[in-house]
């Protein structure tokens, strides 16, 4: 698995196409939101958690499209399909690399997000980072499964969001709700149920991915 992740990291270091494109896309969507919701900073603070997770979800689609398609361009995915390794491991490596790229792009656009929307940082950064990590991994785990399903589809660019958005709705709801509580500095006991939902979703989709990935990539 280490080799697979290393390969993706080197590939990204050489091309720098995925993280950079995700960052620019995230920035562009933030800008559109800033123009579209021309309201007072007080109202922005209420909308901000939802807007943030919409930007993350949209950005993840861009990454998920690329995560599998660049190997499909010259049938390079054949090499890892035919490699003598457990295909569940391939799924986990894709999940990890997707999570790393999404988190990197997010770290870049989160500062402009707070700046453009005039949001002040008066909440626990630790909790906020925690929810970002959990939400990202949950979105990417279901996203990797969907991307695998759409790998050879004629309309993969359309299929990924069409399948991902409804399936990931519990993640978006739970992550948004948790972020609202974090922004309001509410005690953890009040919103731990949402963390439980995110964990359950992450574990279920990761386990399903591990078990079913063999069926997805089989020729």
């Amino acid at each position: 698995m280490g080799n697979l992740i290393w390969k993706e990291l080197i590939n990204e270091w050489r091309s720098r196409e995925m993280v950079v494109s995700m960052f620019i896309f995230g920035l562009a969507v933030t800008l559109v939101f800033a123009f579209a919701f021309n309201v007072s900073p007080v109202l922005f603070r209420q909308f901000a958690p939802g807007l943030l997770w919409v930007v993350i979800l949209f950005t993840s689609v861009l990454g998920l499209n690329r995560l599998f398609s660049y190997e499909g361009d010259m049938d390079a995915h054949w090499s890892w399909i035919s490699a003598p390794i457990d295909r569940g491991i391939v799924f986990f490596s894709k999940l990890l690399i997707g999570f790393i790229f999404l988190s990197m792009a997010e770290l870049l656009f989160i500062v402009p997000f707070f700046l453009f929307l005039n949001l002040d940082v008066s909440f626990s950064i630790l909790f906020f980072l925690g929810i970002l990590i959990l939400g990202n991994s949950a979105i990417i785990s279901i996203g990797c499964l969907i991307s695998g399903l759409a790998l050879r589809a004629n309309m993969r660019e359309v299929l990924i969001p069409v399948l991902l958005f409804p399936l990931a709705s519990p993640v978006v709801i739970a992550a948004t709700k948790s972020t609202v509580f974090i922004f309001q500095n509410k005690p953890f006991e009040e919103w731990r149920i949402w963390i439980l939902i995110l964990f359950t979703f992450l574990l279920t989709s990761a386990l399903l991915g591990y078990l079913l990935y063999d069926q997805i990539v089989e020729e």
Partner: protein
Amino acid sequence: MSFLALRVNKIHFLLAAFLSGINIFLILTIAPQNQLQPDFGNIFYIHVPVAWTAFIGYMLVMIFSILFLWKQEQTWDHFALASAEAGTMFMFLVLITGPIWAKPAWGHFWVWEPRLTTSLVLFLIFLGYFMLREFGGNPEQVSRYAAVLGIIGFLDVPLIFLSVKLWLPELQSHPQVGQYFEDAGIMPVLMITYSLLSLLVVISFMIRFRVHNLKRRETHKII
């Protein structure tokens, strides 16, 4: 050849039409009404059984999908597809009858109520399922992809329901279904509706299964 030219279809159609007539008559005449929701509330007798039937259809998709991945026999895939089609048809009816009931009961056509929202999300997942079937690529691979999606889609339901239920807790004060079950008199009419809809779902399932089987035979003939 028209649909009704086939004897088995004609029998199914006549049986379903006869039972539907009796069912609607019973709902409009002897079915007990809820005190808080007179007249319009009787859509309950259709809405609730339709929703159950749709969920059963989707549960069957998951079961047949698991069997297909396990046994690798095309018949299970046809069963899963036919169940998905029947389930989606009934889920569409849920999304029609739900707002019709919601408008006089709550004042709005759409309320982000957990049951209705879960139905909508599930309906969208299965629209994606049909898109995957249509545009997924090689038919043999598509059957496997669809089976995986059928399993994930249904397993996602409890989480969707729970998160929507907790999302807007103020919307949880609608005991519309519970109110009806306080009256023991509802059961006979409700049971007739359940039987009728079960029959309808089995008929639609059988028709779609036959269509998929014929399509496969035709494709094999051409090859």
